[in-house]
């Protein structure tokens, strides 16, 4: 079984050791400040964004796209239409920085509770649904990519 992508594993290890709530919040705000880097470019999509890219259950109106790279990995792009969707922006940045370019098989191994490791267990239900929805959407793209290009772990058929 594939492990989760190494960059994400390192990030999760850092968050799981973080006990100071203010430190966690400030770090997530700093991460969200990099959101423009992961914003979907015009060549991929422009407003109004298609409904099939909208994350179900995300009240911040987050959208996710995936672009195939030459090495068959995926580059993820995001949009967050609610200007107050800071947590969704932070999540988008984290997933771009740790999952873009990672083997799709590894992306599928990311557990849902990674969201709690990152944001802490105080997440409200509504917020966790939205953030887990972003992860689910990223994993759906990875699943589709494996179906399209084959799973190298399965070996030759």
């Amino acid at each position, binding site marked *: 079984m594939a492990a989760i992508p190494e960059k994400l594993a390192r990030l999760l290890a850092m968050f799981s050791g973080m006990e100071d*709530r203010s430190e966690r919040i400030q770090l997530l705000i700093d991460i969200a400040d990099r959101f423009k880097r992961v914003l979907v470019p015009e060549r991929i999509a422009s407003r109004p964004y298609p409904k099939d890219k909208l994350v179900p259950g995300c009240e911040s109106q987050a959208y996710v796209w995936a672009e195939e790279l030459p090495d068959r990995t995926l580059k993820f792009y995001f949009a967050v239409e609610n*200007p107050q969707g800071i947590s969704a922006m932070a999540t988008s940045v984290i997933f771009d920085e740790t999952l873009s370019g990672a083997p799709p098989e590894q992306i599928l191994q990311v557990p849902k509770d990674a969201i709690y490791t990152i944001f802490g267990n105080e997440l409200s239900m509504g917020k966790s649904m939205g953030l887990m929805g972003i992860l689910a959407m990223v994993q759906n793209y990875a699943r589709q990519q494996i179906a399209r290009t084959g799973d190298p772990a399965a070996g030759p058929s």
Partner: protein
Amino acid sequence: MTDIKERGYARPEVLVSTDWVAQHLSDPNVRIIESNEDPLLYPARHIAGAVEVDWTKDLNDQLRRDYLGKSGFETLMSRIGCTRDTTVVFYGDKNNWWACYAFWVFHLFGHTAAKVMDGGSLKWEKEGRPMTKEVPKYPASKYVAPERDDSRIRAYRNHVLSHVEGKKPLVDVRSPEEYAGTRLHMPDYPNEGALRGGHIPGAASIPWGRAINPDDHTFKTAEELRAIYEKEKGLKKDDDVVVYCRIGERSSHTWFVLTYLLGYPKVRNYDGSWTEWGNLVGVPIEK
């Protein structure tokens, strides 16, 4: 949206506009309080001079499922520099859902000099009004609170059971999927789960967000609200009403609407809500 005073509310003084808040930022008798679902929002940016009241660490007892007690409330009010005479003005994310929750908890301690900023922080932000990261510091105040009074606006499970047996009106403000029991909670969700899906018998489904204009996040007019709660769902002003959701925060928004905007004299918020009722031994549910 029309001026607040022209919307026909029973108690229009509890709702203030973003303009009003902008004009009172330096008013020593007013404390602006931000209360959000998302703990990242206040540290990222807020109205200048506003303090934060955090629903998880400021309003709840950390060891039992309950709100803070008298001494905890006194400590909170002292920290944010409020006296019994300070008018507190709440605003926040999610169309003021958490702001109304804080407003409700403050009322448990009789701090009724309280208002809500119509449209919440999103309206303020969309209007391009200034925001800051600077956290204000106010001199600690001396605040003496009364004992928390749960008798008037808070309902416990035994009250709700009597309510059900008496066939009195209940309002379930959760989503239609939660009401129907088709959505219980997120897989692996650690905080707000329930064993059973459905609703309290006899409850009417009126999702809390229906009270809000989706375009500018303000409250609908009294006439529009009556069309929903009374003409469509059959509530009457003199009804003894219990509202609930999952943990009592969304329903505090509806409690605010019924009590202050429509002037219902007896509305109680069942904060045990579905996380208690859906797990409670020996009580009936409906799907």
